[in-house]
Structure formats: structure tokens, C-alpha cells
């Protein structure tokens, strides 16, 4: 059974009249890796600062394992933070940086030495204890920041976009390393990022935030495959939206008209009636590009193709102007696979791989948040 460690209830926060968090509720389970994902200004960093105690909410409460922390000072909270720019003390050695938190707890010298050595060994920096932060690379500084936070054995570790300053390869390495640390230490990680790929690959659960509200809370798979709304669908991964209309409703299925194509689809969770507009969401990898002679499918032509190594990504303009992204794995046996630019094709998708959302139209705001 999952046990709630940190409970946020009805959190609201305004800055200068601007609402950043709007009555947010969230339960964080003990030992999980949970990611707060959203575009800048969505309130994810504010949420983290409220948990750390750097800000206090206008309304609502924060409870950690039954203890009310809402107005507790940061120094008295049993949780630690890894800062975006590491925030290592520049005048202290690596050892002293990591020892800082234990010195504040007035631990005996021997214990401090032993625990700091352990923490540095854990992040493979035992040989760098005497160095100053400015003598380390970005990745090494990052690891010192992590060691400094976990050496206190917090119940919860808050990570504020900790990998955003690293280059791509190092990010990948650190992602794996962070996952390993989290497994080994059994500490609950609350990870803030605007990088959806990072969120999907690392988390047990993802919280998608926008305008201070939770848009969706679920496993990476749920968030990617069954987005709760258009915002999530657009923000997490690439998505094609096909507008459709419900033709008829059956027991477990509905017939939908998409670009004049009649397809029988699984009946969605929300209520549907005949004539209702729908959005058919298709990830690029759900799309199949077919020969123009094929009976099913919507006609269009290839306007862009991108060789990605394992996949071939194409952009197809349908005849009505809709742009479709398709990402196909190579099929060695299919000689017709490689299309030329401008070549007419038909577009279809694998049955059952679609996801349906009610037919709200995407607003300007959502479109811009996507950019």
C-alpha cells in the first residue's frame, strides 16, 4: 500500500496580485520519484519553494508524515533541496560543503567525517574532497550538490531543474545516476523540470502543471498515452489532432467521421452523443503512411522528411491543409518505405492506438504554451 509522505492541500500563492498557485492539492507517496512538469510560469518552482519553506502559502497547508509544516522555517524541515545552479558555498572545500548540514546538526566530528566520506563515495567524488567548487566541472558540482543534500538523510529531496545547466550527454548520465541514487537511498524525490522527455524517463508519477493547477497526475505512460486534456497532449510529446464528429454511438464503440473517413473507435470514458465534435489524438508513431492507391486513409503529400537513425520522421500536408507528423520505424522488407518530397501519400493510423478527447478547440494560449 502506498503511504502518503507529503500532503499539499488547497495551496494558493499570489505574487503582486498574480495568482501562481490556485488551490492546488497533491499527495506525494513515500519513496516515489515524482516530477513536476510544466512550461515556465506554471507554478512548479513556486510549489517547490513552498515545500522547501522558502515561501509561505497564502492559503492551504503542507503536512509531512502527519506533521504540519506550513509555517515551519526551512532550517527545521526534514527535507533538502538541490538547487538549479547548485548553490555550492564558493569559499568552502567540497568536504566542507557536504559537511555543512551535519555541522549545523552539531554531529560529532568522527560521524561527520564518516558520513561525508560515504556521501562523496556515493557520487564518486571521494578524491575531490579538498577541491574548491570553482575547480570542478558542472557535472561534478552537480554531484557535490546532491551529496550535500542527501548526507542529511532527508525524508524528501527537492530537485529544482538540477540538470538544466548540463550538456546533453552529461544530462543522460546524471539522469541514470539520479535514478540509481533514488533507488539505493529510498528517499522520496520531487523533481522539477520543463523537459518532458526527462520527466517521462525518470519518474514514477508525473504532475503536469499549468497556471498553478494540476492538469494531470499519473504515471509517465498514462500521461503520454492517455492525456487528460489538450494541454497535456500538446505539452508532453508531439501530437496530431484530427477533428472528428460522432456519427453513431454503439455499446462499446462509436463511429467517428474524420476527414470524411468513417472509423469505428473504442468508446471513450466521457459522455458522447451523435453529432458531437471530438478530437482524435495520434502520436507521430501511431501514424501510418500508405500508398496513394490504398483504399483507406486521407490523401496528402510529403513536405518534409527527416532521417533520425532508427526512425524516419515525415511531415505530411493533408489536402485540407492540416499538418501531420509521422514517425515510422524502418522496415527493411518494405521497398516503398522511403518517400520523396512532394510525393502523394495517404495517411491512416493503427486501429485502437488513437486517444479521444472532447471537441474543445485548442485555444491560442495552449498553442503558445506549446511553443
Amino acid at each position, binding site marked *: 500500500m502506498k503511504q502518503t509522505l507529503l500532503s499539499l492541500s488547497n495551496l494558493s500563492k499570489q505574487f503582486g496580485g498574480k495568482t501562481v498557485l490556485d488551490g492546488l492539492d497533491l499527495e506525494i507517496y513515500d519513496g516515489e520519484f515524482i516530477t513536476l512538469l510544466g512550461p515556465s510560469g506554471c507554478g512548479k518552482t513556486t510549489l517547490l519553494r513552498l515545500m*522547501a*519553506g*522558502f515561501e509561505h502559502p497564502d492559503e492551504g497547508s503542507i503536512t509531512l508524515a502527519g506533521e504540519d509544516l506550513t509555517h515551519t*522555517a*526551512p*532550517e*527545521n524541515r526534514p527535507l*533538502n*533541496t538541490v*538547487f*538549479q*545552479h547548485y*548553490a*555550492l*558555498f*564558493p*569559499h568552502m572545500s567540497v568536504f566542507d560543503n557536504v559537511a*555543512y*548540514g551535519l555541522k*549545523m*546538526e552539531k554531529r560529532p566530528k568522527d560521524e561527520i567525517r564518516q558520513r561525508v566520506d560515504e556521501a562523496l563515495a556515493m557520487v564518486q567524488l571521494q578524491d575531490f574532497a579538498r577541491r*574548491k*567548487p*570553482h*575547480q570542478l566541472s558542472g557535472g561534478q558540482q552537480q554531484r557535490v550538490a546532491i551529496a*550535500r*543534500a542527501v548526507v*542529511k538523510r532527508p525524508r524528501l529531496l527537492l530537485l529544482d531543474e538540477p540538470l538544466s545547466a548540463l550538456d546533453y550527454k552529461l544530462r543522460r548520465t546524471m539522469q541514470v545516476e539520479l535514478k540509481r541514487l533514488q533507488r539505493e537511498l529510498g528517499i522520496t524525490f520531487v523533481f522539477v523540470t520543463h523537459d518532458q522527455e526527462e520527466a517521462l524517463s525518470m519518474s514514477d508519477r508525473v504532475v503536469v502543471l499549468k497556471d498553478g493547477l494540476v492538469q494531470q497526475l499519473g504515471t509517465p505512460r498514462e500521461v503520454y498515452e492517455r492525456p487528460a486534456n489538450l494541454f497535456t497532449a500538446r505539452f508532453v510529446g508531439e501530437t496530431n489532432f484530427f477533428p472528428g464528429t460522432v456519427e453513431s454511438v454503439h455499446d462499446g464503440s462509436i463511429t467517428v467521421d474524420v476527414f470524411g473517413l468513417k472509423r469505428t473507435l473504442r468508446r471513450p470514458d466521457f459522455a458522447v452523443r451523435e453529432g458531437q465534435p471530438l478530437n482524435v489524438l495520434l502520436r507521430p508513431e501511431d501514424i501510418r503512411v500508405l500508398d496513394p492507391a490504398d483504399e483507406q486513409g486521407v490523401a496528402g503529400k510529403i513536405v518534409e522528411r527527416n532521417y533520425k537513425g532508427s526512425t524516419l520522421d515525415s511531415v505530411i500536408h493533408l489536402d485540407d491543409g492540416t499538418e501531420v507528423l509521422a514517425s515510422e520505424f524502418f522496415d527493411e522488407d518494405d521497398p516503398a518505405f522511403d518517400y520523396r518530397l512532394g510525393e502523394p501519400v495517404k495517411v491512416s493510423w493503427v486501429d485502437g492506438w488513437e486517444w479521444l478527447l472532447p471537441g474543445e478547440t485548442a485555444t491560442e494560449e495552449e498553442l503558445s504554451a506549446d511553443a
Partner: protein
Amino acid sequence: MHSVMQQPFKTAVLILVWGWLLFLVLAPNLLVVGASVMTRDPATFLSLPLNLDAYRQLFDPLYLEVFLHSLYMAAMTTLVCLLIGYPFAWALSKVGKQRQLILIFLLIVPFWTNSLVRTYALKLILATNGLLNNALMSIGLIDEPLQLLYTEGAVIIGLVYLLLPFMILPLYSVFEDLKQELLLASHDLGAGRLSTFINVIVPLTLPGVLAGVMLVLLPAMGLFFVPDILGGSRNLLVGNVIKNQFLDARNWPFGAAASIVLTVTMAFLMFAHRLSKRRIGEEGA
């Protein structure tokens, strides 16, 4: 390699800088060093043979006392400047950008008036029948005017008044550079306000403190006109001694030796400042 002809501007600037340093900095200082090891001569000011008598004279109990008293007043001035300037600079770095500009402007405005004039103004305030005494008497706090002028306190007040901006500006600059994230990190790791102040804020603002001390302590030993106007005959600075040796006593070697002591002290402080900056990694590894 670029030839001189290809970079006439760069060459001209370099010549100007080197010329300036050679003729207006190095040469005068060498002259002072030279003068300090020569013999006093009533007719020609300086004569041979070379000797270290002037430096020996510095340890004469009479002058040693003047030096120590001067050092004491300069140190008090520096301390008062630091005690006022540190919280002031801290607060200055915290207020909004608009107000920051106004406050810095107000800090700099007095420089537009000659410091001699401002010291005379201070004399009017501190005098027996001055503004301060009159104000205190009119609100009934004192019955008799206090002796404020011609005291050690008056000299220190005058020096603080003139030198405070030199303490505040370097401190303001280090507080501006102080990253809030570091203070948050300190709290996050369990340090309260006092611990954070001692372990993070003080060490990180130390270069500013030393820069401020450098800019206040040395001038505070040299601003001879302040004791001339406010201090009376007993509250002399090293600056007064140097001035007197050159203008009144006509003992140039001794005056030169005394000013070299000031220069060496300055060099020592600059060295300490560099070390403190290197400690926090602001200059090369």
C-alpha cells in the same frame, strides 16, 4: 605579430599608460624612497650620506605615540564606518532598483562639495555655540554646552563623515553579488539566521570589507586637514606629521620615511584583500 605601424592606436595607448606609470607613479615614489635614506640638510633639504636615521627616528617614543594614536583614531574611524556601512550596504542591496539609484545618488552628492568646506561645516555643527549644542540645550537634554570640538571624537566624526561612502560602495558591490540561492541553501541545510550570517554571509562579503577597510584606514591616517580643523593640537594623524616634516620642520627624510610606512601598510592590506578574493575563487585558480 603585428608591427607598430599596424596598430598605431594600441601602441599610443600603451605608451601613454606606461609613460604615466613611469613618470607620475614610479618616479615620484622612487624619489620618496631616495629622500627617506638621505640626510636632513637645512639649506638644501637633502644631502648625503645615505643612512637609515629617518627610519630610526620613527621609533622615537614621541613619534611612536603620535603614530599609535593616529592608528587608533583611524582604526576607530574604520570600525565606525564598518558598523554603519555594513548594514547600510546590505539594506541598499535589498531595496528596489529605483530606490537603490536614489540612495546611491544621495551617497555621492556630498562629493560635489569640497571636503575642506564640508569639514568647516561640521565645525559649525560641533562648536560650543554650534547647531548640535543649541539643539540639545533647547530640548533640555543638557544645561551647559558640551565640549565637542577639538576632541578625539570630533576628529573621528569628521573622518567617518568624509570616508563613509568609501566603505559603503565596495560593500554594496559584494552584497549585490551575494547569491540569494546560497542563503537559501544554508537555511535548507539547517542553519538559522545567525549561523548563516557567520558561515556564509561574512566570509563571502569579506573581500568587500577588506576593500572598504583599505579605502578608509589609509586615508584616515592621512587626511591632515581634519585634525587641523576639528582636532586641536593633541589629536594628530600621521598625515599631520608628514605635512609638518615637509612644510614646517623641514625634515624631508623623516617625512619621506613616514609616508613609506603608510605605503607599505597599504600594500600589505591589498595583499590580504587579494588572498580573501582568491579564497572564494573570484580570481584565477
